[in-house]
């Protein structure tokens, strides 16, 4: 007998182990029942919700990571104020770089592996370091580009994402090329 798999009117895709649930259902009640049965039947498997698939199928992009507010507060507190003699020594960021970073994190925070550790480069770019059980990702943000770098199973994955004249959906899609390979822990759900 096949698993009672479900796909809610082509809106959500659940990936379990190596198989993808795909059978269509007619309404919410049927969907929930099918899903409950599926989870019961595969209790030893782990569930992965693919956030980029959620985007593609539902256009839901308004969820944000819980750390977003703290990160944006740190970024905004790190803007160099030109002409101020009161600024202490230290790595500061330009308002352009902070603006670009805020746009990028607004669009992508819930795709990212963890709360980032932030620091500045002597040349003015922002660096965000992400740690996950599966590896580390480094993001370098300039005023017009975010470059994501990660090592996945010995291969270095490298992606430059334009931040000017780019839509949030496009940024998410491009970032997914890196994070989907990291097999990250996300939203408390561990990848298989």
């Amino acid at each position: 007998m096949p698993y009672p798999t479900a796909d809610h009117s082509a809106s959500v895709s659940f990936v379990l182990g190596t198989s993808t649930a795909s059978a269509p259902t007619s309404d919410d009640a049927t969907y929930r029942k099918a899903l409950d049965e599926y989870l019961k039947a595969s209790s030893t498997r782990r569930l992965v919700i693919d956030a980029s698939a959620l985007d593609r199928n539902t256009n839901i992009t308004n969820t944000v990571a819980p750390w977003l507010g703290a990160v944006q507060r740190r970024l905004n507190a790190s803007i160099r104020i030109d002409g101020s003699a009161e600024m202490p020594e230290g790595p500061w960021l330009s308002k352009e770089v902070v603006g670009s970073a805020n746009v990028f994190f607004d669009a992508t925070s819930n795709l990212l592996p963890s709360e980032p550790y932030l620091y500045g480069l002597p040349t003015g770019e922002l660096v965000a370091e992400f740690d996950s059980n599966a590896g580390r990702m480094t993001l370098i943000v300039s005023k017009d580009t975010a470059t994501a770098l990660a090592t996945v199973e010995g291969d270095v994955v490298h992606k430059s994402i334009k931040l000017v004249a780019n839509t949030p959906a496009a940024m998410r899609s491009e970032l997914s090329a890196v994070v989907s390979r990291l097999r990250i822990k996300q939203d408390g759900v561990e990848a298989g």
Partner: protein
Amino acid sequence: MAWKPDNKIGGGEHIGRRLFNESKLSGAPDQNPWKGLAIGNFIEKRGTFSVDRLGRTGIEKPVVEYLKLRCLAHEASRKDSRFDGWAYLKPSKIVEAVSSPPVASEIRTQDNAGVDEDWDDANPKQNLYHAHVVIPEGTDPLLFAFRFREKVGTEKGVYPAPWIKLQGAVDSEQRRKMIETAAYYLAEKRGFEPGHETEDWAAAEKEIDATLKG
């Protein structure tokens, strides 16, 4: 007696990239500590990646002693930075990481104005142990830096600076040369744009004196 390197780098040599503690952001003092190596330590946008030759088959203390003044002068040219030591790899591991071998650098015998200089071991700009890695054409400097840093992480090759207080151990001529070197690095940062010589010298003097006081 420090090892005198020749112009061919041996397979067992330990090749080090200088590390500075630059993983900070002014508006983020509340972050949990992070123990990685700041990627800024590995970014070079000039096409060559500077390194030090630290020893034939291991890190040799006389070589480190020789490099000390040079590293501290370098530190003084970078605001809010502390020289922390070296990330080191053997030549074969560098090739694995970035597809380019380390090459011994020619000994610098001219100053920045092109005037011939006599060799002087006390001159921090002249470094017998300097080598470089050519960044392959078309390689994104960020990708090069990331690959180098990842390889260091895999090999666990970090040698911390043997921190020695220098107060009273540097004579006035050495101090002057350290300032000159630090001022040179400051000028280099702005592409040797003229008109800032006095300002660079004053900034370098301040930083060197702070360093020497520990």
